[in-house]
């Protein structure tokens, strides 16, 4: 892993996360699935936006604490959360 001489600041940790996430893709050829092998894709944990209440609350919390917002869809409406 990373030599301990380099302090792991959060920005560097984020970069490491991204590399780890991408590295799990190496070695698999991109092969679109046939209709009969879509069992895993249908699992709840593979769905984007499976828990709407959790997503809405998260987005609301971050909207009131940070400047950036959006990305997943349109039409959520605003609020006066300062």
């Amino acid at each position, binding site marked *: 892993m990373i030599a301990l001489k380099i302090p792991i*600041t*959060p*920005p560097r*940790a*984020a970069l490491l*996360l*991204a590399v*780890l*996430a991408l590295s*799990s*893709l190496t070695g*698999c*050829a*991109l*092969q*679109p*699935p*046939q*209709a009969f*092998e*879509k*069992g*895993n*894709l249908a*699992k709840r*944990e*593979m*769905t*984007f936006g499976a*828990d*709407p*209440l*959790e997503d*809405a*609350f998260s987005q609301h*919390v*971050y909207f*009131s*604490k*940070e*400047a*950036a*917002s*959006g*990305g*997943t*869809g*349109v*039409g*959520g*409406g*605003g*609020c*006066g*959360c*300062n």
Partner: protein
Amino acid sequence: MAATDHDDIQPADARPRLGSITLAALALPGLLNVAHAESAPTDGVISVKLQSYDDRQPGLDRIRVIAPSLYVLAPVASNWALEASLVHDDISGASPRWHSAISGASHMSDHRTAGTARVTRYFDRVSVGVGGAFSEERDYRSRAASLDVRWSTPDNNTTLYLGAGLTRDDINPVNGVVENEHKRSNEFMIGVTQAWTKNDLVQLNVGHVAASGYFNDPYKLVDKRPRERDQTTVLARWNHHIEPLGVTIRSSYRFYRDTFGIRAHTATVEGVHPLGERFTLTPSLRYYTQGKADFYYDPVYDPVIGEPYPPGRPRLSSSDHRLSAFGAITVGAKIEWRIDSRWSADFKYERYEQRSNWRLGGNGSPGLARLSADILQIGFSRRF
């Protein structure tokens, strides 16, 4: 018995009767009138969730929010779905402070009620949804409407998404600094979801918001922001299932940029781990970093005047920490319990930490106290 052609009954005009086995077979689903790829959900859902948010800065408890919420999904006939949600926030605590010097906290308590509703119609490979949302607080009222279209390829491996929405807000701050101000925004988004392999699902969304109106924070002494804010987001997300472990890794990256001059990056990763037949544990990590707005100025607390004044007399200025440069990390874990085939429960805890020196590349805005928050959610859900 000689070979015989028992050319028997069944004249062409006889009324066909169906035997019991044929009738039983006709009752099997999916053999007649088969719907297309974009099909309506077959199960309805009702979920309730209690969410709480509790933040603080050093030496000062700031805001506490308790928010019960409800969500319903109801399939209607075979081609429609109805969704609705309602949330009520109870907000209490100190109004926002920005920096390490603390003046007296002014306590406040407020309520917010918000709801959404959406109707979706499913056609062959296409679905169209129309939705509305509202949010009501003492000093802020928001109304929104949206339209979305999803189109899937015949092999159902690619889905194209188009969304459009508009929001109209009415602002009436309780301190009367302004009256009947408005904010309007129009937004568009285009996205693609692709099944890359039998274990990989990826999505790319590009969105743009054009907003105009009142963006100032009326509760701050000096806060003058532009009357326009255009925002662009690019979001990429990826769900990857690891078959031998039964684990799913979900990751995302979002780039954000707006005409206030702010650029932000958000990266998240979480891992869904089944524990036995009924439980799932999902630890999660989020890193966020943003640069400051063009008109942001570092707050300098004046011991005589009190609230900070911007140097010089710029036309636009704000010391709102939300427009400053900082980084933030969220660490959390969620446990889900599938009680039986209809009921499930979930519990999630997250810890949010915001610090200016965590900004990517350094150069976070000085003079800002760190912010910590605890976010808790507990929910129940029933399929019907």
